[in-house]
């Protein structure tokens, strides 16, 4: 701690005595406020009492309604005094007391008198006070004075009126809008801040009129705006205009870019920075446009002022997410910031470097981070961990050093959120990088040896139970798990017992040893632990004979409940203990479909440059369970892929419908998720009539209607098609929602008995080639490519025609093929003339496919592409080419 603090602490007692407010009491001060009523006012004494009242309010003291009213009335008496200082305090306390409407009337006349006073200070403050406390009715009376004040030659008065106008625009827009002529005049004011306030108000008055804003910006960017603050505002408005015009003008140079670039040479730092930031945030900014902005930000990085360094590094950090190459020039300056005194700056610098670094700089960076981790706060550590996780997914070859780093920091002190971030990262790395699995699992094992968080221990034990038995030497995990049974609390012990059982079920050679361990758990002090041990011993058949574990047992141990847990929880809560035992079959299986936005929620996952990991596997599991539970679809076999939901209706229509395409080997099932958004209607017998005349290879085999669809409670209806086995048939389907609609009385919620049959046209739906492709990443594309060999390689070249830019062409091909981009190659540096993109996936029939795409811009905008496909089956390689050729 700094020296002066210590010194202050020493004489703290003395210091406290000096406080003029020591021992101040609300009651006493309110008593003192009676001096306001004296006939002969003592301005100095009154000022002191007001200061005391303000002090109390400032310390968080509250006045009751009665007290506030009393003080307010007393204060109004003070308008008699002609003392300037006292009047100034009166203005402040009136604002603080925020009087009610009937009280305001008392001071209105006094304030209106001050508004027309010759004293500038009176006019300015009276305007601010009156506009703060007034309601709409009074405003029309004083409007004339306000309009005059806006163009007052005293800048303080003009600013007061303009700022009040900004506040009043929220409550009385129609009145303030009438002032635009005066405000327009004030924009031309020579006083810097008047210009700033006038510009802010004028823009707010006109913000819904795009043409007017455009005109305002065009005229001001040519002229000279004096105040830096006004200039910052103008930059904001300019970028708004650029953003809105981008969709209209496709040609040539960006309008107003020159203005922004010119602002980079302004003398005020706040303007330079505002302009640099605006440039980096332009939609689809090119590297040519970025360069000057990056250059000034780079200069800021070495400023002596922490605020400048922070502002610059924060902006560059954002730029690095989309244009890592553009920021690499700043890497040297950025590295010197790793040791910055200000930890926010250091963290931002580190994470920026992690985003811009290449494979070779990883090791060096990790070394620097290790020295730095111990002295930053947890929340910064989490930011670093997340950056490292996406780095690892970007450079899977570096998993060893990154995993080591994670395992080192997990042993250090840290809070729950921090540890959880590390564990989550290790789990993601294990999932996405097969080579990292064994070392990752061991790190987790070591972590639970000394983990103080029950939640994390049980999560890890569960994860071990799933992944551990699949490793080359499952036995080495047993010790770690069994140790938990000895040393932990009941929750963790129970988790460990379940994990042991999973090892027993999966690895027959371990069974005898597992049985011994489980039997010891029969003497545990906790009910749950004993129960679990007994249960598993019985299900695994611990009667001495080592038999192969039956499918149903495995299903029991590993399968997920095909019941939504929320539903189960609700049913269990409703269950009243009785003779009748709880019937799990009575739990409704209807899944409440999450709104689409929520499904995208796992946005916490690394979205930066690391290829986004395939969606949570649980979704497809859930779909599979759901489909298998429908008897008509039970014999379709294994679900190959479920698409993301495709909307078939516009947003905010009467019925919202989206569809999920489920692909089986010989069938396709469309799952229509319907939501009824009309409270007065109940839909019954909801089906979708599908016209497959444009999908020749498909034949409808079954459909499952939805019995009833009440308001705002989503439901599903299904239609199944047969298609040639293993063939990636494509086609277009038109859809019609058919249902019986019944009126619902909104007050009682009861539906009428009679319904009317009705139809509702939905949008078309297509089954495309990409639906037959699973996004499956590979950790090391080159290895996978080499080991696949050139036997089934097919290479050809295509012209993609004119494209906006390379990125658009790359995205189009990725979407067409529906494959997983590898090693972050889906990101195209802006303005590059060529690009290589690597994709991997699994085609229907479980055929691994790797694709290498080389793009080049040929001529002005023509994109050419060389497509090389390797797969395990020549025919599939050909199919990929066909998809591209026909797409």
């Amino acid at each position: 701690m700094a020296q002066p603090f210590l010194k202050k602490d020493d004489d703290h007692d003395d210091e406290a005595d000096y406080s003029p407010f020591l021992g101040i009491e609300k009651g006493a001060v309110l008593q003192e406020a009676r001096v306001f009523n004296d006939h002969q006012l003592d301005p100095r004494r009154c000022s002191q009492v007001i200061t005391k009242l303000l002090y109390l309010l400032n310390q968080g003291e509250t006045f009751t309604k009665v007290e506030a009213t009393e003080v307010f009335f007393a204060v109004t008496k003070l308008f008699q005094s002609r003392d300037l200082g006292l009047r100034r305090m009166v203005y402040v306390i009136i604002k603080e007391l925020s009087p009610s409407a009937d009280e305001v009337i008392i001071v209105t006349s006094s304030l209106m008198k001050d508004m027309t006073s010759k004293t500038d200070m009176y006019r300015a403050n009276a305007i601010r006070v009156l506009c703060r406390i007034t309601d709409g009715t009074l405003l029309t009376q004083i409007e004339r004075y306000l309009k005059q004040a806006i163009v007052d030659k005293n800048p303080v008065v003009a600013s007061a009126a303009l700022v009040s106008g900004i506040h009043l625009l929220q409550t009385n827009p129609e009145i303030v809008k009438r002032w635009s002529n005066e405000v327009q005049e004030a924009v031309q004011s020579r006083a810097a801040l008047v210009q700033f306030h006038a510009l802010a108000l004028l823009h707010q008055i006109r913000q819904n009129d795009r043409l007017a804003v455009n005109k305002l910006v065009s005229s001001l960017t040519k002229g000279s705006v004096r105040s830096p603050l006004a200039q910052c505002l103008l930059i904001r408005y300019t970028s708004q205009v650029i953003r809105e015009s981008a969709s209209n003008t496709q040609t040539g140079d960006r309008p107003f870019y020159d203005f922004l670039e010119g602002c980079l040479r302004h003398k005020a730092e706040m303007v330079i920075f505002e302009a640099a930031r605006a440039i980096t945030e332009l939609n689809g900014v090119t590297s040519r446009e970025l360069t000057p902005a990056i250059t000034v930000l780079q200069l800021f990085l070495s400023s002596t002022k922490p605020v400048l360094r922070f502002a610059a590094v924060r902006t560059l950090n954002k730029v690095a997410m989309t244009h890592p190459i553009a920021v690499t020039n700043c890497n040297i300056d950025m590295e010197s910031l790793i040791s910055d005194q200000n930890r926010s700056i250091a963290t931002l610098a580190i994470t920026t470097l992690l985003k811009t670094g290449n494979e070779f700089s990883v090791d060096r960076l990790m070394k620097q981070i290790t020295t730095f981790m111990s002295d930053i706060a947890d929340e910064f550590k989490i930011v670093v961990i997340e950056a490292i996780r996406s780095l690892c997914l970007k450079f899977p070859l570096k998993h060893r050093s990154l995993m080591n780093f994670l395992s080192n920091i997990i042993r250090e002190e840290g809070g729950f959120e921090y540890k959880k971030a590390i564990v989550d990262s290790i789990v993601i790395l294990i999932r996405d990088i097969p080579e990292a699995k064994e070392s990752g699992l061991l790190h987790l094992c070591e972590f639970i040896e000394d983990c103080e968080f029950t939640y994390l221990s049980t999560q890890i034990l569960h994860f071990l139970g799933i992944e551990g038995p699949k490793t080359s030497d499952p036995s080495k995990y047993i010790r770690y798990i069994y140790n938990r049974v000895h040393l932990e609390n009941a929750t963790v012990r129970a988790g460990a017992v379940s994990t042991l059982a999973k090892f027993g079920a999966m690895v027959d050679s371990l069974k005898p040893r597992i049985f011994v361990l489980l039997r010891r758990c029969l003497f545990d002090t906790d009910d749950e632990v004993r129960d679990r041990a007994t249960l598993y011993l019985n299900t695994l058949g611990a009667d001495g004979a080592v038999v192969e574990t039956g499918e149903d047992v495995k299903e029991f141990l590993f399968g997920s409940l095909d019941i939504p847990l929320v539903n189960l929880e609700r049913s269990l809560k409703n269950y009243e203990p009785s003779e009748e035992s709880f019937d799990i079959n009575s739990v409704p299986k209807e899944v409440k479909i999450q709104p689409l936005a929520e499904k995208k929620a796992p946005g916490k996952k690394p979205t930066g440059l690391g290829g986004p990991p395939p969606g949570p596997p649980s979704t497809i599991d859930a779909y599979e369970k759901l489909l298998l539970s429908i008897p008509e679809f039970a014999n379709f076999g294994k679900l190959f892929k479920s698409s993301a939901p495709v909307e078939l209706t516009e947003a905010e229509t009467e019925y919202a419908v989206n569809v999920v395409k489920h692909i089986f080997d010989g069938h396709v099932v469309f799952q229509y998720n319907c939501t009824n958004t009309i409270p007065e209607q109940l839909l019954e017998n909801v089906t979708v009539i599908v016209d497959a005349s444009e999908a020749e290879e498909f034949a409808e085999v079954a459909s499952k209607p939805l019995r009833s669809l009440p308001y705002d409670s989503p439901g599903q209806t299904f239609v199944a098609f047969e298609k040639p086995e293993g063939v990636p048939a494509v086609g277009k389907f038109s859809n019609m929602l058919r249902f019986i609609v019944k009126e619902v009385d909104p007050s009682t919620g009861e539906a009428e008995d009679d319904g009317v049959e009705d139809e509702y046209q939905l949008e078309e739906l297509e089954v495309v080639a990409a639906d037959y492709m699973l996004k499956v990443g590979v950790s090391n594309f080159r290895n996978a490519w080499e080991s696949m060999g050139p036997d089934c390689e097919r290479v050809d070249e295509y012209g993609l025609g004119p494209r906006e830019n390379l990125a658009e062409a790359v995205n189009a091909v990725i979407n067409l093929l529906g494959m997983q981009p590898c090693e972050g190659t889906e990101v195209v540096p802006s303005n590059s003339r060529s690009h290589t993109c690597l994709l991997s996936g699994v085609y229907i029939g479980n055929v691994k496919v790797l694709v290498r795409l080389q793009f080049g811009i040929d001529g002005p905008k023509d994109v050419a592409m060389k497509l090389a496909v390797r797969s395990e089956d020549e025919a599939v390689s050909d199919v990929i080419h066909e998809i591209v050729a026909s797409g």
Partner: protein
Amino acid sequence: MESCPSIKNILLLDSEGNRVAVKYYSDEWPNNSVKEAFEKSLFSKTQKTNARTEAEIAMFESHIIVYKFVQDLHFFVTGAENENELILVTVLQGFFDAVGLLLRGTVDKKEALENLDLILLCLDEIVDGGIILETDANVIAGKVASHSIDAAAPLSEQTISQALATAREHLARSLLK
């Protein structure tokens, strides 16, 4: 981002994190206990940093906070997460320097409390309902100090400091008794 730059609060705390004077312009902090909790945790987060020569900056509960310390006084200005940091620091510097002028260079808690009326008026002149009114310390101090001079008198540096001196002495004496 099209909006006008806005200030969420200005805080002046002492060396233990207690309030000297605070002003909130945003309703993100609905009541006094929430405000106090914010001040306490902000104070404990920043107290170990060296913000005495240059203003420092921190991200805290998705706000941007710039701050500067002198003696046993801690000055803070809070803005939105996406606010231009340099605008915030201009406001902070304006407040900081204006207080320095008004307290005639003796900037510490004791002086600040003895001249609390000047500090409160100073806050009132810098920001109005979140909108920046003035950032030039001389202008701010001038407006605050002008309150004890006759309106007709010319407003030069000389008279400001004279007026200040008398006003301060009178106030301090009477508050202390």
